[in-house]
């Protein structure tokens, strides 16, 4: 624990900032304005990367949870926790940017679009995960229960998605404009999208590393406090 906490990736935040700056520039200036949707379409460059990062984060929670149960290394629990927190932040971004985009384009804030609805349920599942953690005090038991949540919650994602998709398609719904596939995007939009994706992923990694670092310090503080009380 004495080693430099910045570790071998001290340059990561700097790189992230650079990529982020480029991505913002690309989103606003390089990418052309969408002919149909106009400027609101640019929120797409935040919305899509956030969604990707959120799903990636929950996948990491799943992986770290399995690893924790297999090896009982407290650090895997800390990483799962950090990923879940960052994941919920990006998931929240998805849920905020979705309606902001939908309002000018579809005319309503919320349409119960299948993908957005799945994300909403996912958000609830992982807020539940964080609440479970918050209401438990015994660190080892908390780690175990949270890991169970992290595994079961993630396994549930495809089933949730399938059910919501069917729920929407087996139901009459207003005609929804669907943007064409990725292939239809002009090059300038590709640059913006992929640079944002990279920037958000790096940002996520920074968040998780920082959060895990803070949590490790928290553990040390709690242990030191307990040791002092014991005399």
């Amino acid at each position, binding site marked *: 624990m004495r080693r430099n906490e910045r570790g071998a990736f001290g340059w990561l935040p700097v790189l992230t900032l650079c990529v982020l700056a480029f991505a913002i520039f690309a989103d606003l200036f390089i990418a052309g304005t969408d002919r149909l949707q106009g400027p609101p379409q640019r929120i797409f460059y935040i919305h899509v990367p956030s969604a990707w990062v959120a799903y990636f984060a929950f996948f990491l929670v799943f992986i770290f949870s399995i690893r924790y149960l297999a090896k009982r290394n407290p650090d895997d629990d800390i990483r799962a926790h950090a990923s879940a927190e960052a994941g919920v932040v990006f998931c929240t971004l998805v849920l905020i940017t979705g309606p902001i985009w939908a309002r000018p384009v579809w005319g309503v804030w919320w349409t119960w679009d299948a993908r957005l609805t799945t994300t909403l349920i996912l958000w609830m599942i992982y807020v539940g995960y964080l609440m479970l953690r918050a209401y438990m005090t*015994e*660190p*080892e038991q908390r780690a175990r229960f949270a890991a169970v949540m992290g595994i079961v919650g993630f396994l549930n994602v495809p089933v949730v998605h399938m059910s919501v998709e069917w729920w929407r398609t087996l139901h009459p719904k207003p005609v929804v404009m669907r943007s064409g596939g990725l292939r239809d995007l002009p090059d300038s939009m590709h640059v913006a999208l992929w640079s944002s994706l990279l920037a958000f992923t790096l940002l996520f990694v920074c968040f998780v590393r920082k959060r895990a670092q803070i949590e490790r310090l928290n*553990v040390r503080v*709690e*242990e030191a406090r*307990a040791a002092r009380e*014991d*005399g």
Partner: protein
Amino acid sequence: MLEAIGVSRRYGWRWALKDLNLSVSPGETLALLGKNGSGKTTLLKTLAGLLKPTQGAVRLSGQPISREAKGRIGLLSHEPMLYEGLTVRENLEYFARLFDVEREEMLTRVDLLAGTLEIEERLDEPVRVLSQGFRQRAAFMRTLLHTPEVVLLDEPFSGLDTNAVQRLESVIDLMRDLREYIVVFTTHDLSKAFEMAERIAVLAGGRLVYEEDVENSSEEDVSAAFDEYAGGSA
């Protein structure tokens, strides 16, 4: 042989057990002494496989405590681990099935244990209406129902009247006549420890601070070990 090898266990942010080494052979009875919070209960639960050690290992006949090995261990914990709404007999039938005890065998065991514990007349009463003494007897029956080789007893006599204590002691005597058990029990009562155990161990702050055979030990020595630690930490 039941061994704890370098066992540490974290509970909350504390180390409830710290680098603890202990071994008990068949036919031997070990008394664990220590103040509240010294780690006695944690140690007993760890030996029973109910808690996993954070570091180190617990071994029974050289093997880690697997699920199957739990069938060879009987734990009497602070909590009664009995369903209040069921009768004593129904509780025992339930646990017999969890421990995979044949029905015939269970009935013989229940008769034998109930006779010695003098609880026959209360067997068909719900646990809810039983006094503390009878609950403890029922819990004792649950602990011994599957003929464990290792018997772990957490404060078996606390809060009981003399009659109940006598009944429990007679059951412990009875089972020791039947085969070579490994018995570990915790207690506050020094004289009880000397009366029943072959070996005495004192826990303080999750560490073993004193361990000696009864023949080479005296109540004064044990009290001294207690006081030394209490004085050092205050």
